[in-house]
C-alpha cells in the first residue's frame, strides 16, 4: 500500500514529505484521487498487483524527487509515525487540489497487503533543534474535511468562495441545490469568475446586482464567454436597447443560459399567440423578462382561461397583457376567484375590468374587504357615468390609510373595526 501511495504522490503535484501512518496515507490518496487533471491516468497507472519489485523502484524515484527540492526539505523526509504532514502551498492554484471533495470518493485503488518498509528513509527525531527557516517551512496539515455538506468548511481557504461571499452571493442557498456547491469549488476566480463578471459589467449590469445574479443562476459562471456574447448580441439585434438588455439579464439571469434558437422561438411564440406588434412584444418582455425563461404551458392555459372562462375578447386580452404582463403567469384559480367577485358581486362589466387590469393582480382578500366596507358606507359605485365614481385602479393600488381617508372618508380605526365584523 505504501508503494501505491508513493506512486500517486509522485505523479501528483504535491510532495509527501513524511512517512506517516498507513491511515493518513490512505486519506491522502483519497484526496489526491480527486485531482481532476490526470486523475484517471494516475489510477490507471497504479494498478499494482504485486508490489514487491516496484517498492524499491518507487522509493528510488521518490528520493530523486526529494533531492530536487531545497536542502531544508530533506531534513523532514521521514519522521516518526506520529507526525503526519502535508505540503500545502498557499497559492490559489493549490486550492484546486481540494476541488471536489464533495464528489463521492472512489476507493478505486486496490491496496495489496504490503509491509511498510521505512528503513530506506532517513530518520529525524522530533526533538532535534532546527533553524528558523526550517521552522517556517513546516506546514500544518489543513483541517479541511474531504467531504462536507456545507460550503462553510471551505470558504476561508478558497479564494473563489471568499470573493463570491464578498460580492454578496448567498452561498447558503446555493449549497442546498445539488451539485452546485462542488461546481463552485472547482472554479478558479481569475480564469473562470472574473472574465464573466467583467462581461456582465460590459453589458451594463450594475455591480451591486452581481450577487443576486449569481445566486439565482450560478451556471452563468460555467457558460462559455462566446455563448454569452452571442446571446446578448441576439437580444440587441432584436432591437432591445442595451440598458433594457442589462435590466433583463439582472432580473432574469437564466436568459444567459438559453440558446439563441430557444430565445428566438419564445419571442416568436409570444408574438404569435398574443398577435401583438413587435414593439409591444418587446415592451412586455422588457417588463417581465421571466417570460423568456419560464415554461410556456401555463401561459397558454392562462390565455385560454381568459378567453373562455372569463369571456374577454381578443383586444381586451391584449390590452390587459400589455398593461399587466404578470397575468400571463398568475395562478388560474386566484384569477378566476378575483374575476368572479369583481364581475358578479361588484357588478363591474368586462370592459371596465379590461380598462383597469391591476385589479386582477391584487390580493383577493383586499378587494373583498374594501368593497364590503364601501358597500356598508354606501359608497360602492364603480360606474364612471354616475357621480361619486370610484375607479377600480385606485381601489386596489393605494395603501390602507389613504384608502380610508380619501375613498371611504372614514378613519383607519373604523376600517379595522369593520374588518373584525366580517
Amino acid at each position, binding site marked *: 500500500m505504501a508503494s501505491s501511495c508513493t506512486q500517486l504522490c509522485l505523479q501528483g503535484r504535491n510532495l509527501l514529505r513524511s512517512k506517516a501512518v498507513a491511515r493518513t496515507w490512505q486519506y491522502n490518496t483519497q484526496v489526491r484521487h480527486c485531482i481532476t487533471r490526470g486523475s484517471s491516468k494516475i489510477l490507471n497507472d497504479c494498478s499494482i498487483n504485486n508490489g514487491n519489485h516496484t517498492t524499491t523502484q518507487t522509493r528510488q524515484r521518490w528520493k530523486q524527487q526529494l533531492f530536487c527540492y*531545497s536542502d*531544508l526539505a530533506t531534513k523532514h523526509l521521514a519522521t516518526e509515525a506520529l507526525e503526519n504532514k502535508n505540503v500545502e502551498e*498557499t497559492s490559489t492554484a493549490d486550492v484546486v487540489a481540494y476541488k471536489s471533495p464533495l464528489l463521492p470518493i472512489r476507493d478505486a485503488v486496490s491496496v495489496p497487503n504490503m509491509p511498510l518498509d521505512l528503513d530506506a528513509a532517513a530518520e529525524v527525531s522530533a526533538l532535534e533543534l532546527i533553524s*528558523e*527557516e526550517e521552522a*517556517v517551512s513546516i506546514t500544518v496539515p489543513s483541517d479541511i474535511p474531504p467531504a462536507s455538506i456545507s*460550503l*462553510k*468548511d471551505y*470558504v*476561508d481557504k478558497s479564494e473563489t*468562495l*471568499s470573493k463570491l*461571499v464578498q460580492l*454578496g*452571493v*448567498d*452561498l*447558503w442557498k446555493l449549497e442546498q441545490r445539488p451539485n452546485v456547491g462542488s461546481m463552485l469549488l472547482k472554479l478558479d476566480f481569475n480564469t473562470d469568475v472574473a472574465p464573466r463578471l467583467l462581461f456582465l459589467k460590459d453589458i451594463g449590469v450594475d455591480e451591486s446586482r452581481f450577487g443576486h445574479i449569481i445566486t439565482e443562476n450560478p451556471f452563468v459562471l460555467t457558460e462559455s464567454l462566446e455563448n454569452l456574447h452571442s446571446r446578448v448580441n441576439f437580444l440587441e439585434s432584436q432591437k432591445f436597447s442595451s440598458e433594457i438588455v442589462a435590466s433583463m439579464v439582472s432580473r432574469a439571469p437564466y436568459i444567459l443560459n438559453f440558446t439563441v434558437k430557444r430565445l428566438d422561438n419564445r419571442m416568436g411564440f409570444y408574438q404569435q399567440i398574443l398577435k401583438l406588434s413587435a414593439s409591444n412584444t418587446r415592451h412586455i418582455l422588457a417588463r417581465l423578462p421571466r417570460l423568456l425563461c419560464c415554461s410556456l404551458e401555463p401561459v397558454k392555459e392562462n390565455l385560454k382561461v381568459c378567453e373562455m372562462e372569463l369571456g374577454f375578447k381578443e383586444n381586451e386580452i391584449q390590452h390587459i397583457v400589455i398593461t399587466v404582463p404578470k397575468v400571463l403567469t398568475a395562478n388560474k384559480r386566484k384569477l378566476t376567484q378575483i374575476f368572479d367577485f369583481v364581475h358578479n358581486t361588484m357588478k363591474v362589466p368586462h370592459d371596465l375590468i379590461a380598462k383597469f387590469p391591476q385589479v386582477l393582480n391584487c390580493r383577493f*382578500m383586499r378587494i373583498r*374587504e374594501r368593497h364590503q366596507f364601501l358597500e356598508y358606507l354606501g359608497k360602492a359605485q364603480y360606474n364612471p357615468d354616475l357621480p361619486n365614481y370610484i375607479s377600480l385602479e385606485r381601489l386596489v393600488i393605494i395603501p*390602507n390609510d389613504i384608502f380610508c381617508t380619501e375613498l371611504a372618508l372614514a378613519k383607519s380605526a373604523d376600517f*379595522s373595526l369593520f*374588518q*373584525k*365584523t*366580517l
Partner: protein
Amino acid sequence: MATPAIRMFRKIEGLFCVYKPAGVHWKLVRGSIETSLLKALNATPSQPLPTEVRFLALPVSEAEAPKGLTLSAASMPVLSKHPLVTGPEFQNIKVGVGHRLDASSSGVLVLAVGNGNKVLNNLYNTRVTRDYTLEGEFGTATDDFSHTGRIVERSTYGHITKDKLERVLAMLQGANQKALLLYSNVDMRSQEAYEMAVRGLLGPDGKSLPILTGLRCIHFEPPNFTLEVQCINETQKYLRKVVHEIGLELRSTAVCRGVRRTRDGPFTLQDALTRDHWAASDVIQAIGKKRSSKKKSKTQTKDSPLQPSEETTTVNQVKPVREQQ
C-alpha cells in the same frame, strides 16, 4: 452573546390573538405570521464577523532565494461565520395555534410563539369558554348546514316569530345546562357541588361533548337572525348544526351563514390583530398589552373572590397558569 436577533425573539415570545378572515385556512394564517416574524428577526443587524490572525506569505520576487521569514501576520475576518454562508440566524420559529377555526369561519384565533406554547397548552387544559356570533337564515336546509352547501330542503318561515324563537332557545339552553351538570362529575346533592356552583366551577373537565353555556338571540328579522352563543369544547360544524336544529324545532329549516368567534378565553375582539397589523412590531405590542392586562386583572380578582360570572371563573382558572409563567 445574545445577538440583537435573540433579544428581539425574547420580546416576541408570548401569546397574542389574531383576527382570522373567513375563507382562509388557519394554517395559512399561522404561516403568514411565522413568515413576517422571521423576516423581522433576520432583518436585525447581524453581529460583526469574528477575526482570526493568519500568517500570509508576502509575494517574493523570483530573484530572492526562498528563505528568511517572509510571513506577515494579518487579522482577517472569518468568512465561515458570515450570514451569507451560514444562513439566516432564525430559520423557523414555533408558532402554536389555540382552538382552531375552520376555513369558512372567522374570528379570534389565539397564537403562541416560542415559550408561549407551554402557556397555551396549560390554558386549553383548563376550562375555557368561547363566544360566538352565529348568523342564520330561515327557509333552506343544506347538507353541511352552511349556505354554500347543496340544498336539501326548502320550507316557509312566515309562521316564525321572535317569541317562538326565544322559547326554542330557552329549551335548548335548559338541555345544555342539564348536560353541564351531568358532565361535572359531582354528586348533585353534596356540599361540594353547591360550593362549586357558587363559584361557577361546575362543568366538564377536559374533553367532552360540546356544551352551550349561554344562548340568546340578538337580532331577529326574518329570514335572517343572529344568535350569540357561549360554549365549551365546541367545533364550528357543531354550531352550524345547532342553527339547523333550531330551524327544525321551529318546524322550518335554517342554514348558518356565518360563524364568527368574538372571544376565546381571555382574548377578545379588541385585542385581535387584523391583516395589516401582522408585522412583528404590532405583535410585540399586542403581547406586551396582554401581559400587562393579565397582571392587572390578577390583582383585581384577588380583591373580589366571590364573583360567579363566566369571565372571572376563566380568569381564576388561568391564575395558577400565570404563576407558573
